């Protein structure tokens, strides 16, 4: 009996380690390349993960030749704007759909969910024209505005609002709070885990978004990190070492972020799947 359990654990770890190598070896290889000097063969097999002459030259080159800091600042501006918009607007929109009794509530909710059933591929072009028309082309706002309201966010927040007991809200109303105060002081703080999950989904989506920012931004000094990297890859292609260093620098913030917030990812999906 005990023996069987031991075998199971050993087997589990063996598969886990094989999978871990499968998912990370390209990144480990990039990491080691980023520390290698000019004389080393990068593509030899078996790959040499420990550089023979470790150097920081590649990292210095990245910061000298690429406006990494600028890209990071842009990414942070875009991501922050996007997360704030999505969280606040989804929370606002979901409140009357879950907590108030009024005619047409269900109809409006269905209407909001409708676009989820329609493939939205054409929206890219029309939204691009709209952005040009309203004079937002080449601005941070252009990047976040079309996705400022998340239908998934409204859905998620509504589900969580539904589980808030109405006694708390009624008590606040009796105490003389108006509806907005009830929302802001009672209901909204009570669904914090859902808000956190939504914020994190929005954060990763904006941080990694590529196509839309590429379309609506023209000035390279406004590029977020993903767009910046994708544009540089062609100039950098021959120089794997510098490009590797750039990729590692770009990866660090999002990996750190994920490390600290990972439990919300699973919690967020748990909440969304039940429905």
């Amino acid at each position: 009996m005990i023996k069987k359990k031991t075998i199971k654990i050993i087997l589990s770890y063996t598969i886990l380690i094989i999978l871990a190598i499968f998912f990370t070896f390209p990144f480990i290889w990039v990491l080691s390349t980023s520390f290698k000097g000019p004389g080393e063969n990068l593509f030899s097999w078996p790959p040499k993960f420990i550089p023979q002459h470790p150097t920081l030259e590649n990292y210095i080159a990245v910061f000298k030749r690429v406006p990494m800091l600028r890209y990071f600042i842009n990414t942070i501006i875009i991501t922050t704007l996007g997360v704030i918009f999505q969280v606040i607007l989804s929370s606002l929109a979901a409140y009357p759909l879950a907590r108030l009794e009024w005619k047409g509530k269900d109809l409006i909710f269905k209407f909001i969910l409708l676009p989820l059933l329609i493939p939205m591929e054409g929206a890219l072009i029309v939204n691009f024209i709209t952005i040009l028309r309203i004079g937002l082309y080449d601005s941070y706002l252009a990047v976040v505005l079309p996705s400022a309201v998340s239908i998934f966010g409204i859905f998620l927040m509504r589900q969580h609002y539904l589980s808030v007991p109405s006694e708390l809200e009624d008590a606040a109303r009796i105490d003389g709070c108006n509806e907005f105060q009830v929302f802001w002081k009672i209901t909204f703080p009570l669904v914090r885990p859902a808000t956190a999950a939504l914020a994190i989904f929005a954060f990763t989506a904006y941080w990694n978004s590529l196509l839309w920012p590429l379309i609506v931004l023209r000035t390279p000094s406004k590029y977020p990190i993903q767009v910046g990297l994708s544009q540089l890859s062609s100039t950098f292609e021959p120089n794997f070492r510098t490009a590797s260093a750039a990729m590692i620098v770009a990866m660090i913030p999002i990996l750190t972020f994920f490390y600290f917030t990972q439990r919300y990812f699973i919690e967020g999906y748990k909440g969304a799947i039940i429905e």
Partner: protein
Amino acid sequence: MLSRKQQTVIIAVSFLAIPLTLLAIFTYYPIIRGVVLSFSEYNMFTKKATWIGFKNYVEIFQNKYFYEALRNIFKYLIVVPFIQFVAILTAVLVNQDLPGIKFFRTLFYVPVITGAVIVSMTWRWIYNVDGLLNSFLMTVGLIKEPILWLTDQRFALYSAMFVTFWRGIGYYMVIYLAGLQNIPSELYEAAKLDGANDRQLFTKITLPLLRPTMLFCFTISSLAALKVFEEIFLMTQGGSGTTTMMYLIYDYAFVRFKFGLSTATSVVFAGILIIFTIINFRFFGHRGEKR
């Protein structure tokens, strides 16, 4: 004085006003405008659209790349069962209570969180003529000449598909993990008391209760496969026979600036996706009834 009911409506409207306005401009309007635009020729300089009837649609169906894209997106569906199978296995594996399991979960999610740009750049080097893959295969003796993974017509699409597979697993693993953790542990305990073994627990409890999650994942994964864009855009630029519908839509709009042609393609593509979804639901629904 307003009645209570009217007051509630006013409050509801004030909460919904801004979100609904933005949805109207950037979500509902594009649906209608996109269809109108597909019958027009849009001039970038005058910003005027001229009605040209079905001309765009005729042009789409005369283009050989449309058929190539169509073939490719359906070929791309092959990745779905592979991703889902490995994702379920991985989720079951990391759902165990073992020391260090959180660390492994994080590692498996790294390809998802890093984003398409870095992943594609890395794999482009692995697929390079003198890249890691060729150097490995030649050292082992499986091939004599290096293979042009991303520029040879025979391999390019499959190389891209492998990257999709590689970076998709972690994403679905987390969803399955959430699904697994939603299964009440009492069920397992009760079954164990009745003398069920591990395999029975898996086939009689885990799999049936994971079914809704599987249905959800298969659906979004197949739609994602049909809509594949980033891997193609970043690794082959639609070359070597790897065009997809989304790449075609992008290429018409933002490389050639033929907005009418691009929206017409997206209308056709939306139709294809709707038909696919209906067939998909019929198929799964039917299987569900049998059970």
